């Protein structure tokens, strides 16, 4: 009998979590977005100003830190807080555009493969396999050696890295959806294939896609930091959290905060986008609506 109240409590806790207002979960994302937009107006020191004498100052709360540099300085004496704020803009832009650019072709190809089946499916599935087998850094180096280095090329590289997982998951979802009686019913009612895909199947996979997209934001940010580390992504003097993370690796022993601060910011962004994605999915699921 004792298991009853425990599972009951668990249930009510998870119910409470589900019911958590979307607004609360969006706060970190919104704050980061506001900082990204209003950064030039914020009372922060210049993100690019170097002062070698002030190199590797720890954060304010650690021994030797001061409030002049609340989150410390990097090896060139640049204020980490100012760089964090300055990097938010490019990070968000890359994360959003990179995710959208990989999601849209990924979803389209997945729907096509899942719905059409046959040789269309075979070709697209082999493309997915090929993409997943190809080391993405090789791909990135190849493209950038041809296309040069710019934000557009970076987004293109991120899209080429990220479309395949979307295609795989969407294909599987559509494969199971297309045999559902309501799809058969709509086909019998004469609803055309494009309309069926866009109006009926797409909304039914939207929940999965939304959750995948929030996870993809994390992958994109990390991929961008890896590319930046190799000098293929964002390069100085432009700042993104990925480049900050990459630069911080050099000083991990003497100045952990240089990498830890952008790392924590990335984690916060990922966590809140993931929770937000989950909350949005629950919010728009009509199964939770009362009659």
């Amino acid at each position: 009998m004792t298991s009853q109240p425990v599972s009951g409590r668990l249930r009510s806790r998870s119910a409470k979590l589900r019911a958590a207002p979307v607004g609360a979960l969006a706060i970190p994302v919104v704050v980061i977005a506001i900082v990204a937009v209003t950064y030039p107006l914020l009372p922060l020191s210049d993100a690019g100003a170097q002062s070698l004498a002030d190199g590797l100052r720890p954060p304010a709360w650690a021994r030797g830190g001061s409030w002049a540099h609340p989150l410390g300085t990097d090896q060139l004496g640049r204020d980490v807080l100012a760089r964090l704020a300055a990097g938010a803009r490019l990070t968000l832009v890359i994360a959003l555009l990179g995710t959208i650019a990989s999601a849209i072709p990924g979803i389209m190809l997945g729907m096509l493969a899942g719905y059409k089946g046959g040789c269309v499916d075979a070709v697209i599935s082999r493309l997915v396999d090929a993409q997943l087998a190809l080391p993405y850094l090789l791909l990135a180096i190849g493209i950038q050696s041809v296309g040069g280095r710019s934000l557009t090329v970076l987004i293109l590289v991120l899209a080429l890295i990220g479309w395949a997982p979307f295609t795989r998951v969407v294909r599987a979802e559509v494969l199971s959806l297309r045999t559902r009686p309501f799809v058969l019913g709509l086909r019998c009612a004469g609803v055309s294939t494009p309309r069926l895909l866009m109006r009926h199947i797409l909304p039914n996979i939207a929940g999965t896609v939304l959750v995948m997209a929030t996870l993809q934001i994390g992958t994109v940010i990390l991929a961008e930091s890896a590319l930046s580390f190799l000098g293929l992504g964002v390069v100085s003097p432009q700042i993104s959290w990925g480049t900050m993370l990459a630069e911080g690796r050099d000083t991990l022993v003497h100045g952990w905060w240089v990498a830890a601060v952008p790392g924590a910011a990335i984690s916060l962004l990922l966590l809140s986008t993931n929770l937000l994605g989950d909350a949005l999915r629950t919010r728009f699921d009509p199964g939770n609506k009362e009659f």
Partner: protein
Amino acid sequence: MAAVASVRDLHVSAQTSSGAVAMLNGVSFDIDAGEIVGLIGESGSGKSTIVRSIIGLLEKNARIDSGTISVVGRHISAESDYRVIRGRHVGTVFQDTGGSLNPLMRIGRQLREVVNHHAEGLAKRARAERIRGSLARVGFSEEQVERVLRAYPHQLSGGMRQRVAVALAVVTEPELVIADECTSALDVTTQADVVRLLRTLVNSSDRGMLFVTHDLALASSLCSRLVVLNRGRVVEVGATEDVISRPAEAYTQALLAAGRSL
């Protein structure tokens, strides 16, 4: 009366890894306006293959080898013919009550989706009236109609959902309605409701109906004619009383005996 649909000498086969397998062997029957034809047979006898041949949604590995299908006098052969008849001339109701409606769309929008597709010439108000009319015809009261239009499928009971599925099939005023095992998933009282509803729908118009079922008792209470199917062949066609009281074929006798022994 004129036939709303006729199937002549239909042969369908499926390609499998071990070669072609015949699914239908020369099936022929007619459905006249104002009558309900029962298509009966055990699982695997080819009932669904006939339905899918008529609406042009055969499985990918199956194809029509020979024979003709015509609906409202129109000979059906190419995909473009199917596009014309699907929904507009043939309405279909399927078995699964829970899954036969889009779970993410309110009932009103689903009905609109189908009506808009087929009634380009109709004014917006006429379309709305048609939608309300179709729900009223399947037995919803005026107050219920408003509630149902705003509801998502999961908010309705199984019987209500199946009535909505019937409304969805008849909202375009098709000449032929195909009911494919549409009462099999319902409890007995709801089944009786739906059967009564189907009978009214046919009696009140010049519609024809193909009622597909494995339930001989149900078919005999609803249908005026029966087509008995076994292993892809029509073994018996005739008026319901004749088939039930004087079954000519051994298979029909066995089917009847199996029903009685339960």
